[in-house]
């Protein structure tokens, strides 16, 4: 009997803690999706919560598709995505930043620049040896992202055009994995967001002679870039819209995490 009483007291104590917890945060915002955008959302959430202690923001990854799915299902407030969601017209698109993507190779590959045509040859499986594009006599190991990946969609659109990507390449499902596999595999080539390639020690290729830098993207010279999107179910309101505005305008965080401010862009494109 005594034990039961103790148990009851314990349960009562837990429930008291559980019910009192939300008193600290009046508003809870949930965001999930793109792993490319994740570093920025995480840092922005931390900074925003510090400035607004009454707001709690929970951030997770899962991929662009997950972000869109969850926000369509109203399971979360904000769905982070590298790609547009044309099949879901009910979603409201807030562009928060621009991200560049670098074509990267194993550090041992001596090639420094490739034309779009050469890249199309490599990724479509026609070019299989580095010596065909001015490199050493070494097999090319192509590493792709999955067909549902936002990064792959950007690469396909901006580099491949109508040339299909060959299915014989390896596929790795995250930016981090791509970077480490390229680094350990001689002759490897892939593509990844600047936020993942910066400081990774990989060989970053120029495309048609244009180096993959923020300045070249801003000036409209380097083609492989995309907008990062925060989708909400209908136009954002209240604290959610204030948080999105905070992410868009926080130049310090945007630059620190390898992104580019939208307002800096000299070129504007509607369909990215």
């Amino acid at each position, binding site marked *: 009997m005594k034990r039961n009483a103790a148990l009851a007291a314990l349960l009562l104590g837990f429930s008291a803690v559980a019910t009192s917890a939300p008193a600290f945060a009046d508003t809870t915002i949930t965001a999930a999706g793109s792993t490319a955008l994740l570093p920025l959302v995480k840092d922005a959430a931390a900074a925003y919560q510090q400035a607004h202690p009454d707001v709690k923001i929970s951030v997770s990854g*899962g*991929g*662009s*598709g*997950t972000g*869109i*799915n969850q926000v*369509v*299902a109203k399971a979360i407030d904000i769905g982070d995505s590298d790609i547009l*969601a044309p*099949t*879901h017209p009910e979603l409201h698109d807030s562009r928060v930043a621009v991200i560049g993507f670098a074509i990267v190779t194993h550090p041992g590959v001596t090639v420094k620049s490739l034309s779009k045509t050469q890249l199309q040859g490599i990724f479509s499986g026609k070019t299989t040896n580095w010596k065909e594009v001015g490199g050493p006599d*070494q*097999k090319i*190991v192509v590493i792709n992202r*999955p*067909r*549902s*990946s*936002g990064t792959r969609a950007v690469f396909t659109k901006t580099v491949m055009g109508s040339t*299909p990507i060959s*299915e*014989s*390449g*390896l*596929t*790795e*499902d995250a930016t981090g994995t791509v970077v480490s596999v390229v680094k*350990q*595999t*001689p*002759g*490897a080539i892939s593509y990844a967001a600047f936020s993942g390639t910066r400081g990774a020690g990989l060989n970053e290729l120029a495309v048609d002679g244009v180096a993959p830098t923020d300045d070249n993207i801003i000036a409209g010279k380097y083609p492989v870039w995309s907008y990062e999107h925060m989708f909400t179910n209908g136009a954002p309101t209240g604290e959610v819209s204030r948080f999105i505005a905070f992410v868009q305008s926080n130049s310090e965080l945007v630059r620190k995490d390898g992104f580019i401010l939208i307002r800096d862009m000299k070129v504007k494109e509607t369909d990215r």
Partner: protein
Amino acid sequence: MIAEQARRSHRNERIALTALRFSAAFVIAAMGALLLYLSAEGTKTFFVDRFSLLTFLFSPEFSVENNHPGAAVFVVGTLAVTLFAIAVGGPFGVAVGIFLSEIAPYRMTQVLKPAIEVMVGIPSVVYGWLGLTLLVPLIRTHTSSPSGFGLAAAGIVLAIMILPTVITLSEDAFRSLPPALKEGSLALGATRWQTITRVLLPSAASGIAVALILGIARAVGEALAIQMVIGNASQFPQGLFAPTATLTTEIVTDMPGATAGTLLEHALFSMAFLLLLIAMILIVFVRFALRKRT
């Protein structure tokens, strides 16, 4: 006082039985819900997107962007990897099972058995990681494979992962044989090797079959560990050292980006449903083998 105690124990018994019934009902309900959901989602490729089952099972072209959900590559990939794993891990596992039950001294089994149990407890992501950091570079440097990823790497990782299942179950199969079999054989002058190969092995055949089938089930169902080393290329296996993909690795690779309601999502659910059907068929085989034994 005694009446009070009797009443109380009677009440406790009722509560306990209700709890047991409730647990059983819950499991049945959960299983039913899972089956219903998977069959509803897994058949949308056919009923919503109107593709034929033949296209899904036998077409090698999996390009949902071109409206073509052929999963033959992944079906063949699953078969190839499983076959590799069971061909390498199966005989080895049964051999260790025989060793543990018939040959190993008691002290040794006391060390080996916990070691095998630990192998079961190691998460599959750890196996995959070891494969990625040890096996893949090894294959890359010692074969013509430029990357090291592929069928062989996945098959070896899987062969190791199914070992505990095969070892434990085949050991059980030998231990559950009546002792008179072995004693009779030895008494008739057969050597230990003759006893094992001519008397015990045939008698334990159905138990070994169960061990192998459950090893196959484990191999078919494993996803994460082989996804890390197989290369995930949507092409038929082009050789032992070329990258390919399986049903499970394809689901793991493309699931995070699959938007709800798209053909890609439906096709992935169809693959999940197919895996469930394969698991069911394997369990039917197990039942069949067990019935034969009794």
